[in-house]
């Protein structure tokens, strides 16, 4: 089947206005929020599960890859059509299908924007707990694919802890259900397995999520330190003291200065690091915990601990954190954000190691991250137009992740493996581990037409590209690009 025929049939399935195939339109779907890029051959916007199933059937018949995509805010290339083919955009499947407040559940289509769901249930005192920094744009379908986290997942858990059921279109076009509104049902937990499978197992078309009660009280503190080391030791001290804040974020001196210049969040320009700490719960609990946090920070040589006095001040403190990546974009042509995880007790030495890596490769690396769960986000600044700098950037990134693994951590805490870190999977997993994961992949997606070239190292992707030898196949990390 020629691709022109594929496009014609896509128009028949989804409607003439629901398919893009002109080069200038496709360009918008070449990238996500990370560095990778590749051009799809067509983008289609289905409106229903039935249309998704028909498109999947068509792709299978034509032997064309198919890649689901939410808002394209991912950071690991999960929604990029690495081998060309069809991108399935979910912007028209963006309805909240059901709010079942008695069961603390919502049923949503994958294109629903994360924050829109929380806003829709705020009146009932509920929210959807996973809160990626991109929550104003990112979709719940994307959150499910990547098992997204966010600052408040420290206390509340990541996406998988908040999904109980799915409707899924499998790569063979069958529409199936995994789980439902009840949690812990009998049978294999395919819902849990699906969340975080990065679009390589099936396409979620309905998602049943838990809704969480908003806390009665929240206290947001900003602890200011002379050195990164003091801040890092404070994180260890807080965790050891049995305090589980709702969020515990760190910005190092370089990053907080960059952020402060852009957002005026109130971070002191002359400090070495700040911790943004939030505790929530009952008023009584919050008062006690805020006091305990403040005491520990001071014992750990905090220069000052400030507490937001009202919601406006709280939002201001958070605005620095949530808009940080944008702020960095003002001062560097490109940056590479890493997503390593380490045991929380290893934060001090890991940050020192990152500093050494920065010196070794003559790069600037800022640190802004979810300290409370040891999820680092080193930001490596570089100029994408300079191939030599790009090379050093990737080498430095790899070295940092190797260190994370060496101290017992992981290569990704919330961004996913995608096409960014698939070659690093052997750092964490043995050949047997990967073979077992491959068997599971093949049980659902035997021809690798669904999101090919992701998650698994290339030794297996070779086989995939044979199955889908399309001229528009992408180039992955070979052509890093600037943050849009």
């Amino acid at each position, binding site marked *: 089947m020629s691709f022109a025929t594929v496009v014609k049939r896509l128009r028949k399935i989804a409607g003439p206005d629901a398919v893009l195939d002109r080069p200038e339109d496709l360009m918008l779907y070449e990238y996500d929020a990370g560095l990778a890029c590749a051009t799809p051959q067509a983008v289609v916007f289905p409106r229903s599960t039935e249309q998704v199933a028909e498109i999947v059937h068509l792709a299978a018949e034509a032997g064309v890859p198919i890649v689901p995509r939410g808002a394209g805010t991912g950071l690991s290339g999960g929604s990029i059509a690495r081998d060309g083919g069809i991108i399935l955009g979910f912007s028209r499947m963006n309805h909240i299908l059901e709010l079942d407040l008695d*069961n603390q559940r919502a049923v949503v289509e994958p294109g629903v924007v994360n924050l829109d769901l929380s806003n829709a249930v705020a009146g009932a005192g509920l929210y959807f707990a996973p809160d990626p920094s991109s929550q104003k744009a990112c979709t719940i379908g994307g959150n499910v694919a990547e098992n997204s986290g966010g600052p408040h997942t420290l206390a509340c858990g*990541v996406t998988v802890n908040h999904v109980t059921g799915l409707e899924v279109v499998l790569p063979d076009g069958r529409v199936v259900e995994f789980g439902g509104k009840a949690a*812990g049902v009998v*049978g*294999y937990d395919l819902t849990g397995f699906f969340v975080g499978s990065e679009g390589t197992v099936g396409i979620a078309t309905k998602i049943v999520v838990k809704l969480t009660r908003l806390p009665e009280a929240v206290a947001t503190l900003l602890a200011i330190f002379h050195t990164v080391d003091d801040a890092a030791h404070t994180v260890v001290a807080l965790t050891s003291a049995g305090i589980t804040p709702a969020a515990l974020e760190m910005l190092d001196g370089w990053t907080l200065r960059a952020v402060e210049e852009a957002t005026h969040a109130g971070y002191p320009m002359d400090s070495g690091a700040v911790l943004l700490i939030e505790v929530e719960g009952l008023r009584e*609990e919050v008062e*006690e915990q805020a006091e305990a946090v403040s005491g520990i920070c001071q014992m750990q040589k905090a220069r000052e601990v400030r507490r937001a006095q009202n919601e406006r001040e709280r939002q201001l403190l958070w605005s620095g954190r949530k808009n940080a990546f944008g702020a960095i974009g003002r001062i560097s042509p490109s940056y590479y954000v890493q997503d390593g995880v380490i045991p929380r007790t290893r934060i001090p030495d890991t940050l020192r190691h990152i500093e050494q890596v920065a010196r070794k490769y003559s790069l600037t690396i800022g640190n802004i991250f979810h300290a409370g769960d040891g999820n680092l986000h080193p930001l490596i600044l570089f100029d994408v137009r300079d191939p030599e700098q790009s090379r050093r950037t990737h080498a430095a990134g790899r070295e940092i992740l190797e260190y994370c693994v060496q101290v*017992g951590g992981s*290569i990704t805490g919330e961004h996913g493996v995608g096409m960014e870190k698939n070659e690093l999977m052997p750092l964490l997993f043995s050949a047997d581990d990967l073979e077992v994961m491959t068997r599971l992949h093949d049980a*659902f997606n035997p021809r690798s037409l669904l999101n090919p070239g992701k998650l698994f190292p290339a030794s297996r992707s070779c086989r995939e590209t044979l199955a889908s030898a399309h001229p528009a196949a992408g180039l992955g990390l070979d052509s890093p690009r600037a943050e849009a």
Partner: protein
Amino acid sequence: MSAAPALPSLAEELAAIAGPEFVNDDAGMLRVFAVDGIAPAISVSPGSAEEVAAILRLASARDLVVVPCGGFTHQDQGGIPKRADVLLKTGRLRALRHYDAGDLTLGADAGMTLAEVERTLAVHRQFLPLEVARPEASTLGGALAVAAHGPLRHAYGGVRDFCIGITFVTGDGKIAHGGGRVVKNVAGYDLMKLLVGSFGTLGVIVGASFKVFPRPSASRSFLCEFPEAREAAAFRDRVLRSPLRPECLEVLSPRAAEYLKDSIPGAESKAVGRSAPEAWRVALRAAGSEAVLARYARELGAAVSTELEGQSEAAFWRSVITFSESVEGRHHNAMILHLALPIAAVAAALAAAEQIALDHGFLMAAVGRAGAGALVVALIPILVDPPAAPLYAAAVKLLRLALPHDATAAVARCPREAKSYFSVWGTTPTELDSMRGVQRALDPKSVLNRGRFML
């Protein structure tokens, strides 16, 4: 033509893998490991993941059925075994792999008992919210395989929510890891989720890592009484809509009290004197400082009939965790069901269970996580003579029909004769073909617990 050399016996081959002292084929001794009258032909206690893998490769080659077991506390659950060739005991795999108190993570081999985990964590005032009736016997691997949970599931979620890494051996003998030892990790497929609740049919779990939690400084529990299940559920809803965030929120049927009674405190005190004989109860456990506990007392107000603290509180929750065992201990013909259902269906399910019990010659007693939608329902025969097996089947069928379509009701225990009249697992909303695909991927020759799971 000379005779072919005799093949080594299974016992010899297992002995070559694990050492002869860890292989047992004494039929008399193996009888205690019988399930529904089917005893394993031989047992083996491997000392490492590699030995487990070798045993499973051998079993695959010889087309044997392997039954993995930890403390042998939950083996009853499942269909009647068709065969049980090799009992694979994980008891020798009990090393602590890592415990980083500052990071609140712990990893250990599958055969470590929950009591040992508890002792290890207690040193740093931490704990794993994985509750079982017999922690001295139950193992980490077993608790994962059956997705064990107790009242703490309300606040901490199920074991799927705090198991962060797993090592297991596939049916065909490959050692595989998923996750790791850090609290946040999305690298690779989430194999933990597949193994949790797989009842030993996808792999033999040989080790796991967990997020652990700081022990609350103090706690207090509140018992509230209601004439009807509906009112108990309405109270549960009031709590769920309030700012309170209890550790446990448990519903207890009137008859459940009989199986918890040694622990319902001060049986002679006024508190119980006030109790209605047929009261439904909601038990709420609060944790925190005195100010926080006082707030709970204020908010719950007049609804509270009894407050529990200290040892009596611990004893009460222990008795909730051991509810099934208390029922079984007294009525060996009782049937125990595990229900998973949307929380708004809890009251109707309990009312249906009472009615169905009444209609079929049973008494109903239940405890459960009212806020998480997980109930343990016991149907206890009224007569000393066991009811006819089809009555069990009829009761189960009707109860399942009374539940929403996405709920499940698995029979955790019932007399063997009854098992042949119905599926102990019932239906699940999760598509069966996909489950079969996963099973074929991980246990291609169906070596593990063949025929006992729902597929």
